[in-house]
């Protein structure tokens, strides 16, 4: 805080008593600080006396009239009422008493659905693996056709993926044959 701000706090009575005492002592000794305090004090006084608001000429009649005008408007307004809450209470439907056996039926239905889902996943896996096996069988039995097929496959394709994972199953002559065909 700048020196000026400290003196401003001092003049506004915003300091604790201990700090205030210390600063009062400082003020008695320092001409520079006295000048700062005088400057702020006279500025505040200038501002206070510069006020153009003078209500001394306003009579009580003026304020009576103003009061009556305001009260006439107040009487036209509806009485102040508590605001309706902006939220609404939502009543949930009362639960219907359930059949005690219903949870057994629900559980059974859940297990049936689960079993069907598992079976479907299993079949899908099987068909995928059998498809891969078919490809490999074809590759082993007829490497030249397989090599030709691989020649127009990119590295991202399914056939190449299956082949690369299963090359170990091929004999050296089959691999050499395939490579030879591709080249």
């Amino acid at each position, binding site marked *: 805080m700048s020196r000026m701000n400290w003196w401003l706090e001092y003049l506004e009575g915003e300091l604790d008593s201990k700090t205030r005492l210390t600063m009062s002592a400082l003020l008695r000794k320092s001409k520079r600080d006295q000048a700062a305090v005088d400057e702020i004090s006279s*500025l505040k006084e200038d501002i206070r006396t*510069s006020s153009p608001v003078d*209500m001394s000429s306003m009579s009580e009649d003026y304020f009576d009239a*103003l009061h009556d005008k*305001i*009260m006439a408007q107040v009487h036209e307004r509806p009485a102040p*009422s508590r605001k309706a809450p902006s939220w609404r209470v939502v009543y949930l439907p009362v639960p219907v008493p359930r059949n005690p056996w219903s949870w057994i039926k629900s559980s059974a239905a859940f297990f049936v659905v689960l079993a069907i889902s598992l079976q479907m996943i299993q079949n899908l896996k099987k068909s995928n693996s059998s498809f891969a096996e078919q490809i490999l069988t074809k590759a082993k039995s007829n490497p030249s056709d397989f090599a030709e097929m691989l020649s127009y496959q990119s590295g991202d394709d399914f056939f190449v993926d299956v082949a690369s994972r299963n090359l170990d199953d091929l004999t050296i002559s089959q691999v050499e044959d395939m490579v030879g065909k591709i080249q």
Partner: protein
Amino acid sequence: MSGEMTDQEVVELVKSGNRAMFSVIVRRHQKNLLRLSLRFVKDLDTAEDVVQETFIKAYERLTTFEARASFKSWLFQIAVNTAKNKLRARRDEVSDIDNVPLAVAPVAESSLVHSAVAKLIQAYIDMLPIKQKTALVLRIYEDLSFKEIAEIMECPYDTAKANYRHALMKLRDQLSEDNELREWSEEVSGFFTEMQQRVAEVES
């Protein structure tokens, strides 16, 4: 009897349906509100409008007053906001610092000097950012505590104080610059007066 009641007690009566008791509130605060409004909007007609609007708004929102601040602070808060809206509406018409005479002729009477300085100070106050002006007006003219100012301005205590401090320091800087300008103006004016006298002497 109503004279002994606090604002809060009167408000509770109005809330409970005693509309006529609002008259007590109006009588108690209308002068202060008019004075405060005049400090912002400058002309009496607009200030009167601000006071009327303030009381009507206060009446309509009375149930929202929760006595966390004093009722006076709450009314002042509504009045300051209403006055700000009026000022915003006629922003183009606010006083222009260029229209205020900066220098006072050396021969001027002291009252004229004071009047010119007062006008200048008011013009500078009007040029302050609205938050700084509000803090300054509430502190210096209305003699309110920083706690009350913070309530009216709906800001933290330290922010209210900072706004007041900035306003005061800005005025100090502007006035000291202006003093230099006035001194220079007086010197120049004195120089020309002397020259005119010499020319007149030579001619005679």
